[in-house]
């Protein structure tokens, strides 16, 4: 055996040993696998952290049940560790679907709380961020699931189903919120959740609007009624004069912003094209044959042309935050003009917002519309 081939044999042995990666090997059962995390403000300590984890049975058909851990600490990581310390297992947050933060903490700023999750190599940036509105974050994950074992999965699924109807799809994920927190021209958004009482002393969660941030501080909510206007798609109830209220499904909608800058004022025109249909057989007062297609289209156009500027007014007065990202988009599309007026022009207050809406009626399912 030559010298070099001896080296090769030694080298191969070392490589085979290294392939096992045994230093980091752990059995699944050794992990405290966390599904959702609720962070509330504490009294004795800064945070109360509640975790919803999986408890595996010892049977052969590995069954997982939800188990709640709780801990108090002055930092997020310490709180996570303190919550699982009684289990003797290793914390694993790679499966976390929902991170819920209480209103009180969100009002003080979420940057510090999220910093740990965004930096951690375990966290998946697809995890959603939620704000507990009018309740504690912990109450949203304690026995609120209705059809699955874990509230975290159910919250994730419920919001994603709603996101399917909206252009709000990416906004809720950690990576998107991270970008908005770091970008000085954007405002982060997150889904707000509230608890709802059910018969037999049960409770569940429901969506309570979109939480709006200025920088990293919670400033208010876009209410549920505004979500289809904000997001673009959704199910909408529109008042139709004497006919009552009609429920419509927005299948498709596209919006295009166009800006004009004249006489030291920015004019934003939002062109919306949407396709709608009935969700029910007519209005809440009359059947489908009592109202014409043209009347429906007219009401929808009026509703949106009124409510898009109304959302801007609401953002201006109530939220005092540029949630429509008027400046951000002006900066994107008119960078040289933006450079000239940057810092001197108040985009939120001084911009005039208008909407042009075009509606296509896709039909009414199995019913025939009266022309």
């Amino acid at each position, binding site marked *: 055996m030559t010298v070099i081939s001896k080296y090769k044999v030694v080298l191969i042995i*070392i490589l085979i040993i290294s392939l096992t990666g045994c*230093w980091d090997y752990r059995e699944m059962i050794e992990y405290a696998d966390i599904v959702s995390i609720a962070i509330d403000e504490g009294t004795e300590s800064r945070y109360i952290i509640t975790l919803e984890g999986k408890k595996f049975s010892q049977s052969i058909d590995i069954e997982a049940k939800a188990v709640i851990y709780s801990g108090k600490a002055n930092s997020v990581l310490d709180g996570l560790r303190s919550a699982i310390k009684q289990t003797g297992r290793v914390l694993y947050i790679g499966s976390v679907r929902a991170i819920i933060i209480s209103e009180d903490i969100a009002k003080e700023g979420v940057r510090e709380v999220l910093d740990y999750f965004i930096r951690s*190599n375990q966290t998946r*940036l697809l995890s959603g961020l939620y704000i507990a509105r009018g309740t504690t974050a912990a109450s949203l994950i304690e026995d609120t699931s209705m059809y699955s074992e874990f509230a975290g999965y159910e919250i994730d699924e419920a919001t994603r189903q709603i996101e399917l109807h909206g252009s709000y799809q990416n906004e809720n*994920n950690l990576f998107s919120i991270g970008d*908005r927190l*770091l*970008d000085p021209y954007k405002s982060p958004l997150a889904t707000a959740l509230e608890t709802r009482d059910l018969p037999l002393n049960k409770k569940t969660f429901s969506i309570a609007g979109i939480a709006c941030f200025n920088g990293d501080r919670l400033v208010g909510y876009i209410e549920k009624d505004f979500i289809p206007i904000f997001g673009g798609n959704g199910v909408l109830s529109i008042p139709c004069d004497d006919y009552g209220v009609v429920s419509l499904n927005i299948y498709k909608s596209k919006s295009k912003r166009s800006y004009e800058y004249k006489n030291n004022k920015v004019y934003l025109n939002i062109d919306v094209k949407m396709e709608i249909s009935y969700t029910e057989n007519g209005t809440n007062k009359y059947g489908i044959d009592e109202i014409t297609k043209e009347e429906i289209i007219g009401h929808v156009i009026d509703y949106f042309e009124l409510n898009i500027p109304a959302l801007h007014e609401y953002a201006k007065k109530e939220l005092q935050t540029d949630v429509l990202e008027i400046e951000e988009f002006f900066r994107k599309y008119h*960078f040289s003009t933006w450079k000239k007026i940057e810092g001197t022009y108040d985009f939120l207050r001084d911009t005039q917002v208008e909407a042009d809406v075009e509606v296509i009626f896709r039909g009414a399912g199995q019913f025939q519309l009266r022309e």
Partner: protein
Amino acid sequence: MKKDILSVRQTFSIMILFVSSELILNMGDSLKGNGTWIAILIARLITFLVILLYSYIMSYFPDKDIFDVNKVVLGNVIGKIASILFALYGIYVAVMCSGNVISFIKLVTLQKTPIIIIGSLFVGWAAFSITTQGGIEAGGRIASTTWFITVGIWLFFILMLTKHMDFDNLLPILSEPIENVARVSYRHFSVIGGDLVLFMGILIDPSNKNNRRKAYIGSFFITGILLLANNILITAILGTYVNYYLLYPTYTALSLVNYANFISRIELFTSLLLLTCTTAKIVVGIYVAGKGLSKVTKIKSHNFWVYFVALVVLFLSSYSKDRTLLEKINRELLWAKNIVQIVIPLILAIAITIKKPKLAQSELIQ
């Protein structure tokens, strides 16, 4: 007998893997605002000029490597100094690359495994592959069958992220001052394009004096498209700021793949991409350094120098606990890299042009 001569296709394939390692490791810089892709484009244009320079030099010596060329063109003493610089550069590239891949694995997966084990996996494998009977040519054959699989996997997973892409993230096209763009372009060139100088230390099929140029230019276009597309798409997915602050943005973006809860958690594939590409770069660095040292010292055994260099690389890339140290050194030593990337090739090109008639008489020109 070791095979040390690569075909055009093999060289082209290794070059693609060599540059593609940057897709995941992101050793190049990026702008805090918009316009990184413009900086990359400028860096690629500089790279194009530089690879023409390398091809020009080597076209006069199709059956020689850079160490022979240094000796012929610059003389014994200066040629030897230039060759030692080239060999050190090979070690530097291998150290940076293995250091980065060790940091990557330590950060994202094997946190408890000693870094020396992780390092020896890469560096040892690289040294072993060079000293086997097939030599670097066997590596070339592997590269020519793996580069398109590697690129294909990257493309497949990137396309699965279409729903997260928001091309408005790329606007405004350029929001940063021009000096910042120049800085990022310079860094991109020095860290990515300029490293291709190492291929002057590898013999390429000498049957045609333009073979090296063919490999350089062919891989230049493919890697250029890859680097640009990667930056544009990752910015569209993650946004400018997250892309800027993350250590491994492509890895993070690809971890977002979740197709109907069925195709998800594809980090393993991303890591395999990285390992394949990075190993190619470590192999080239160690091979060239070993070859250079075997030609300028009295110990002529290439295999000895390959193992010696591998040990040096392993030590330098794993001795420090500060995983950002290599990154800091890399930033500070960019100017030193340019000596090998630009200054020496430029001197060689000028000397060859001046001495052309004299060289033509010698038997060195085929």
